[in-house]
């Protein structure tokens, strides 16, 4: 079981509030991703849940048990660190067995569990090596192995893929997702990469300046961002945000249009502009268009489109998929 409840959790370092009064329910078996720009408090929130930092006020429950002041070891959670934090003087086998040894398990039981974890993570051939002799991806697997042998109530991942190269990151991302599907254990995952958040999460928690901006499934956040911050943060390329006279036509302070919700045509269209930059990836084409009276608009079109820099084109936003925000930046229904 791994249900975690935070009530009004606050953390301040001296005068500075890093986390300001967060309420959050994490259901058993959920894959929750904390996402936000750097310095938003996502790692601190994870460390508060882990017990590596003390909460300044508020309370926390794990499986209904009061856990606010429990030491890390007593919370039944396992953590995978950004730097892997393997024990460099121990072999892979001893690294993975370490939490079992700390729990006072017999050598036989330890060996059985280590073998099982190594099998899941393809580490069987590397059990007698030291972390220094492994590649980044293998080290990451060892760190995960050390976490799974404990059979924790929940896994905590602190930007676990940020030290890996792009190709490996995609593979490991899928491995972690598959691991979640097979173990069905609660996972809390911190990242600044919204693609990781969108692809892995059951539930995304968008954080900004120590506050929760929105909680929801990836597609909920994509389709109905609650405010300008979430609208700008979720989605790649970023949503176009238009203010001024054009927004006023739609009765709002800011008008949001996702690049993929704009049609490109040579003939009649809503807006007209000159293409500044065009990128052709084969599967998609991206354009930066200087639209008359509005400014630069990013456009994403499926497939190949014969449009080059300097061309004058017509743009038609999908009127059904416009996002409207008031002067405070909150979404209008």
């Amino acid at each position, binding site marked *: 079981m791994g249900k975690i409840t935070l009530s009004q959790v606050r953390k301040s370092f001296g005068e500075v509030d890093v986390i300001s009064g967060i309420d959050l329910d994490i259901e058993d078996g959920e894959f929750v991703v904390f996402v936000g720009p750097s310095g938003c408090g996502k790692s601190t929130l994870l460390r508060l849940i*882990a017990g590596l930092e003390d909460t300044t006020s508020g309370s926390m429950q794990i499986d209904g048990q009061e856990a606010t002041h429990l030491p890390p*070891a007593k919370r039944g959670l396992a*953590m995978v660190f950004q*730097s892997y934090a393997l*024990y*460099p003087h121990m072999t892979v086998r001893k690294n993975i067995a370490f939490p079992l040894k*700390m729990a006072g398990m017999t050598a036989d039981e330890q060996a059985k569990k280590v073998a099982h974890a190594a099998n899941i993570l393809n580490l069987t051939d590397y059990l007698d090596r030291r972390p220094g002799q492994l590649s980044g991806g293998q080290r990451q697997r060892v760190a995960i192995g050390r976490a799974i042998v404990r059979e924790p109530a929940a896994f905590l991942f602190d930007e676990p893929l940020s030290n890996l190269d792009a190709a490996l990151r995609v593979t490991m991302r899928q491995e972690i997702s598959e691991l979640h599907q097979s173990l069905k254990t609660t996972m809390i995952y911190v990242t600044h990469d919204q693609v990781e958040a969108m692809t892995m999460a059951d539930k995304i928690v968008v954080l900004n300046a120590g506050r929760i901006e929105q909680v929801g499934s990836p597609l909920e956040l994509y389709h109905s961002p609650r405010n300008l911050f979430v609208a700008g943060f979720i989605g790649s390329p970023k949503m176009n945000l238009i203010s001024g006279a054009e927004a006023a036509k739609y009765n709002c302070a800011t008008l949001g249009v996702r690049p993929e919700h704009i049609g490109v045509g040579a003939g009649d269209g809503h807006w007209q502009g000159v293409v500044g930059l065009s990128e052709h990836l084969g599967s998609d084409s991206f354009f930066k268009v200087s639209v008359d009276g509005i400014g630069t608009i990013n456009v994403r079109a499926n497939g190949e489109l014969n449009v080059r820099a300097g061309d004058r084109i017509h743009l038609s936003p999908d009127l059904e998929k416009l996002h409207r925000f008031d002067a405070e930046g909150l979404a209008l229904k």
Partner: protein
Amino acid sequence: MARHISTQRRALNTASAWTVALILFFPILWTVLTSFKPEAQAVASPPIFLGFDWTLQNYVDVNEQRDYFRYFVNSIIIALGSTAFGLVLAVPAAWSMAFVPGRKTKDLLMWMLSTKMMPAVGVLVPIYLLFKTLGLLDTRFGMVLVLTLMNLPIIVWMLYTYFKEIPGEILEAARMDGASLRSEILYVLTPMAVPGIASTVLLNIILAWNEAFWTINLTVTDAAPLTKFIAGFSSPQGLFYAKLSAASTMAIAPILIMGWFSQKQLVRGLTFGAVK
């Protein structure tokens, strides 16, 4: 980019290094040579370098006059005892300063170091009186205690520097894995700090072995180490250079041999963390 050094320049560097090393080593070499000379040749003028009548008589005489072995055992007990005792106190101290520093940690470290800047003779009288009152004069325990306290600032400083090199996330990982503070220090921190701890131990054994001020002033016979053994030959037998040299050679030989075999470890330990 590798810098090019000419062969001539390299030869010159090597020659100067050897010269400096020989100048530094010469007094020790001369002491060892003198210890094998008959007394008359030891004071000969001009001095004889190698062409003297080699003899072991000085060593026999010195041992007959004083029991070398007893001093040797005392030296061992004091050097190892004070180092062990120092480590027991310094590991937790350095741990807390490196991993849970407070606002005053830096000041505390500076203050500890500043105690080494005071001349030892400044506290001789109070410490002598304390030792007298507590019955610690000329006891091995008393000497272990005083040398532990003398070297503690250095042990704490050295360990602190080594511990600072260990990433905090690894200790946090141990905490998440269910390690108690004791297991964390025993299974994770200490093994990772072994090179640093080893050079701290070596340096402290050397410092304690060579320490002469306190050992000479606070011991008479029972707890007297080898420093006292040499000192004992200096005044009454001041003119017997060969015997004095034999005593000195016997006193410094163990630590010289240990230093020779551990020099790699010592250099590595002392420059640990200097280059990332």
